[in-house]
């Protein structure tokens, strides 16, 4: 008998990168996240799925404290990155966000040149000692985002002039330029056409070598395609969290089943 290679989608490490315990989020009077416990693994793509308003984006934004910018938002419970509480008063959210990068729903490059878009993060974090360093970081990030070949001849051109898919990959390059450990993606493909989506998905799979990627998506097919772990949120609860293969063939919870098979639930 051969020792058959494992399916790539099954290879996950067991190292926990982010861990949440009893996480509660309130938006004013609205209890948006109810008591969520989750362990997000390193070098793994984890997808959050669920109907609109289920709290998946809210929870994602808790992971790099983007919710801090919203006055009425209160986060309780415990979220740790490598065992350190990210809501500890000693933690500067700015520093945290350099380690936990974020890519947003709509491609949102700065209205600056492609080069400046990528160089901005390293610049403000003082990651480059000189121009050559910075050039190196920019090239490395653009290569990692699989867009280098498309833009290397026009680094001075505005980032907003690229196509939607290129813009999103530029945003990913911008996010990886600060050498984050975790990459949060909030519906990164919802504004892209299928080809661009496929390119971004391919990129996400490559990024898994170096990062822990958490992706919120409305497309269950996308979650199935790109992630190794899937978490299903419903009405602020984490209903089910497990291997993507298991969630999509044989979910344990009937709510998950109803949602992923497209039934009213």
């Amino acid at each position, binding site marked *: 008998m051969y020792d058959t290679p494992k399916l790539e989608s099954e290879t996950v490490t067991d190292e926990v990168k982010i861990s949440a315990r009893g996480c509660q989020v309130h938006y004013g009077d609205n209890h948006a996240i109810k008591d969520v416990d989750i362990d997000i693994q390193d070098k793994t793509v984890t997808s959050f799925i669920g109907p609109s308003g289920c709290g998946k984006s809210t929870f994602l934004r808790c992971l790099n404290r983007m919710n801090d*910018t919203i006055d009425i938002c209160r986060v309780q419970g415990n979220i740790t990155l490598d065992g350190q509480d990210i809501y500890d008063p000693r933690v500067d959210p*700015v520093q945290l966000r350099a380690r936990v990068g974020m890519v*947003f729903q709509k491609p*949102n490059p*700065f*209205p600056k040149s492609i080069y400046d878009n990528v160089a901005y*993060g390293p610049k*403000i974090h003082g990651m480059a000692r000189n121009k050559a360093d910075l050039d190196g970081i920019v090239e490395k990030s653009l290569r990692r985002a699989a867009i280098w070949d498309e833009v290397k001849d026009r680094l001075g051109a505005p980032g907003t002039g690229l196509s939607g898919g290129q813009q999103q990959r530029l*945003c990913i390059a911008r*996010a990886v330029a600060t050498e984050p450990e975790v990459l949060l993606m909030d519906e990164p493909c919802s504004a892209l056409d299928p080809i661009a989506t496929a390119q971004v998905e391919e990129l996400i799979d490559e990024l898994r070598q170096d990062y822990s990627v958490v992706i919120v998506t409305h497309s269950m097919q996308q979650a199935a395609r790109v992630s190794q772990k899937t978490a299903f949120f419903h009405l602020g609860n984490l209903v089910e969290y497990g291997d993507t293969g298991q969630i999509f063939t044989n979910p344990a919870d009937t709510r998950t089943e109803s949602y992923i098979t497209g039934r009213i639930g």
Partner: protein
Amino acid sequence: MTDATVPPAVARPGLFEGDARTRKRNAAERRFRLYGMIAVGAGLFFLVTLLFAIVSNGIGAFQQTSFTLRVEMREDVLDKPGNRNIEDIKAVKTFAYKPLLRAAILREIEGNGIDTPLSGAKIVGFSSDLDKLLSDGAAAKLRNQVLANPELIGRTVEVTVLASSRVDGYLKGRVTRESIARDKNLDAEHLDLVDVLRGAGVVGKGINTAFITGTDASDARPEQAGMGVSILGSFFMMLVVLLLALPIGVAASIYLEEFAPQNRFTDLIEVNISNLAAVPSIVFGILGLAVFIQFMHLPQSAPLVGGLVLTLMTLPTIIISTRASLKSVPPSIRDAALGVGASKMQAVFHHVLPLAMPGILTGTIIGLAQALGETAPLLLIGMVGYIASNYPDGVGAGFLDPNSAMPAQIYEWAKRADPAFYERAWGGIIVLLVFLAAMNILAIILRRRFERRW
């Protein structure tokens, strides 16, 4: 979902025949378009009428009638000792220059063989019937010329002096033979003489640069009045407004929009800023009078105080427009900046503010233009009135010396009885409008330039 819809029972008309409902709808639309065009047309009509009225009334202010006379600078009158000592020449007052001008006119009359009952004979005191042709300032101008260049004494010099406002009015058609019948200042004989002298090239209209550069003049000498000093006054005020209102307004807006917590207190501030924008400007004038002049004892009528008052008045405008343009920057840009680990301030100053800049500049310039045209608050702090002084010496004096402002100057002229001043008021409005148009064009150019970058 539900049952398939039942096909309509009624037979539908063909596509080419519109039904009654459609015709009615189309007619309503056509009517609405017509109303719109009528409204736009009416607006255009009023605008054109207004512009025509302003230009036709005010264009005269940019031309001025003057006499070109060959004046004999008699040494025995101007410099009796004959040693060109400047102190001696200064001792000779303008009265002494009047006869010289009078003689020059008489020479023109004789030289051209004109038959006129006017003889240069004295009527009252030092005045003669010929003096009414010239501006009161003519002799003073001659004296200044001599003081500047004593070498002229003893020579016959060709000088250009302003005609009186009545003569000026006659050449511009404002003064007619009918209107002078009720006027003690000028007789028909004067007009006959002017007609002939005009033919001889002694009297003529020319471009009136003094209107742009000159100072205000007394009631008796409208032909000398100019906007120059009030333009400077406005300029200094605008400088104060720009230097104070822009930084204060932008800083306040950024704080309120990006940093301030959302609570009752900030809500209150917001409501009050909106209300301040609607406060009548005269209220700001009272405030300026009470605070800056009576309490802080700043000089009256000074552009500094005017600028401070106008700053208060402009701040709400700038804050509102700046906040609007900050709000219009998509939140995704802020997210993007925060997402790569920028601090809130870095996000605002590196990304949000540059994007909001065209809007902020436009708002600021519109605010400045509004302040430039503001009269009411200036009345209360005394920045209106007779400022016939010379130009301020130096920037400090420019801010602190009494001055007027363009709209105040226009108001002042419009108040005066003499129709010649009335003409200048219209002319002043043209100057003011040109400035406003220039500022608006500047706003458009700046906006274009900042926006065109991407």
